[in-house]
């Protein structure tokens, strides 16, 4: 072995040499007086330097040191109140509202879709059999814009649930999603085994022009094995909630989109102090129907166009998007930075809605 350089001596003293190299080093040092002197000099400098740095001491510990400060913690997600949800679901079922529906024309609470020219069109998704006539129907719906009466509101009922026109006695619509048993029965090991509630009609909350051209039927119904958990994953692993309010009802569904994509839609219903409903709907384009239940297994190829479109939709600042929409009583739609299309609906004026929007977490 040649004479070790300063770096190697330092490695040796710091215990950073591998066993074999250390053996060679020791063997050389044993027979080399000059190197032993250098090693001792380096050892002395090392000890003294380290002692000098240690002399600088420690800063005085402050209260709470070592605990992650609140400002660095991820925002706490409000837990879903299962008991409340079960109660709400039971009320719904008891009242014969397991299936809630009606056409968009009757409900008149449609989301608006923005055209390139700045006007709006209102897509309708999920119609009864009598209307599910194919592409020509789709175009009619897409181009039938805003003559319909539409106050964008739902009427509160005495029990706090939302009164909606129902399709009692009508043919089961194509878009109808299977009726679910009460939530309490769905709960399996703390998770929802299936979506909470079925709906005939669901619309995206945002201005997605392509949606207006989509076949306006939900097909198939919920993919087998779909769960609220899967919906949350489909929404990107998180869900938006209204801070400070308890969720009264949760609805989950998926819509087919052009190109084989799907939109996962989750609607949360809250109640204000007077019992009037506040609805927060959120949707996000995901992948082909049937792959949603295993959201983890969504192929990148299928997800890519959807992701690109969501990015394009989200690219425009939310505030500008909201401002570009014509003012509507009781509704506020926007796209957030993560590509969530959101719609807030409440019996409230624009200012109150804006304040509510600020509470969306």
């Amino acid at each position, binding site marked *: 072995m040649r004479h070790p*350089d*300063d*770096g*190697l*001596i*330092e*490695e040796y003293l*710091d215990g*950073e040499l591998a066993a074999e190299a250390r053996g060679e080093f020791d063997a050389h040092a044993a027979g080399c007086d000059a190197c032993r002197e250098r090693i001792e000099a*380096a050892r002395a*400098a*090392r000890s*003294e*330097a*380290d002692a*000098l*740095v*240690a*002399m*600088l*001491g*420690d*800063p*005085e*510990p*402050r209260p709470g*040191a*070592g*605990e*992650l*400060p609140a*400002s*660095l*913690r*991820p925002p706490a997600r409000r837990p879903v109140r299962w008991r409340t949800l079960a109660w709400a679901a039971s009320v719904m079922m008891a009242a014969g509202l397991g299936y809630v529906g009606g056409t968009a024309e009757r409900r008149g609470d449609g989301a608006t879709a923005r055209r390139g020219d700045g006007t709006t069109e209102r897509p309708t998704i999920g119609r009864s059999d009598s209307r599910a006539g194919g592409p020509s129907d789709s175009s009619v719906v897409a181009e039938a814009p805003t003559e319909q009466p539409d106050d964008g509101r739902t009427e509160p009922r005495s029990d706090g649930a939302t009164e909606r026109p129902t399709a009692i006695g009508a043919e089961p619509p194509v878009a109808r999603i299977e009726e679910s048993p009460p939530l309490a029965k769905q709960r399996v090991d703390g998770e929802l085994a299936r979506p909470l509630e079925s709906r005939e009609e669901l619309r995206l909350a945002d201005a997605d022009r392509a949606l207006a051209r989509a076949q306006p039927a939900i097909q198939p119904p919920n993919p087998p094995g779909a769960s609220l958990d899967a919906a949350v994953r489909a929404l990107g692993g998180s869900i938006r909630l209204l801070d400070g309010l308890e969720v009264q009802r949760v609805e989950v569904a998926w819509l087919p989109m052009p190109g084989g994509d799907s939109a996962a839609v989750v609607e949360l219903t809250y109640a204000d102090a007077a019992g009037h409903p506040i609805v927060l709907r959120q949707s996000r384009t995901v992948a082909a129907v049937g792959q949603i239940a295993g959201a983890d297994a969504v192929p990148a190829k299928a997800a890519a166009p959807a992701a690109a479109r969501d990015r394009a939709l989200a690219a425009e600042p939310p505030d500008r998007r909201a401002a570009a929409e014509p003012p509507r009583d009781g509704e506020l739609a926007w796209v957030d930075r993560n590509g969530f299309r959101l719609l807030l609906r409440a019996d409230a004026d624009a200012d109150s809605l804006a304040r509510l929007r600020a509470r969306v977490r």
Partner: protein
Amino acid sequence: MTLDLAALYRTSHGSLVRMLWRRTGDRDRAEDLAHETFARAVASPPDNPRPWLFAVALNLVREDGRRGAIRSRRLELYRSEGPQAAPGPDEALERDERVAQVRRALIRLTERDREILLLKAEGFNYDEIAETLGLARGAVGTTLSRARRKLVETYHQQEDGHDAAS
């Protein structure tokens, strides 16, 4: 890989603040920089957190140093911030003076030498030092050897100067 931020904070925050405090001489600044570093870890969780944290923190210090905003304040703080132990008045004064000398010696080193000494004092091994400072693993020993000798030499020069003056 998910980052357990709470665990990382528990194990590394104290060490990071100490290194930054020794590096800047400003307790509040050290706390701020450590907080900013952890905030960045939240935004983009690193794979190898400890070297990453210290590398980011040292970058922040360098950026701050380039702006030169706190340079004069730092010197004041070096004088005013002493050790926390409270021995007798004479001992305390003497110790304060020695600590101030170490700090002055440290300031006179190159940035690389200063940083490698502070990282070694936090228990970093050569691999971690190499990753934190962007050095080749083989260069760590040489750099550390030079930094240690230089610190000792500069410290004794000050001591000699101090003795000659008094």
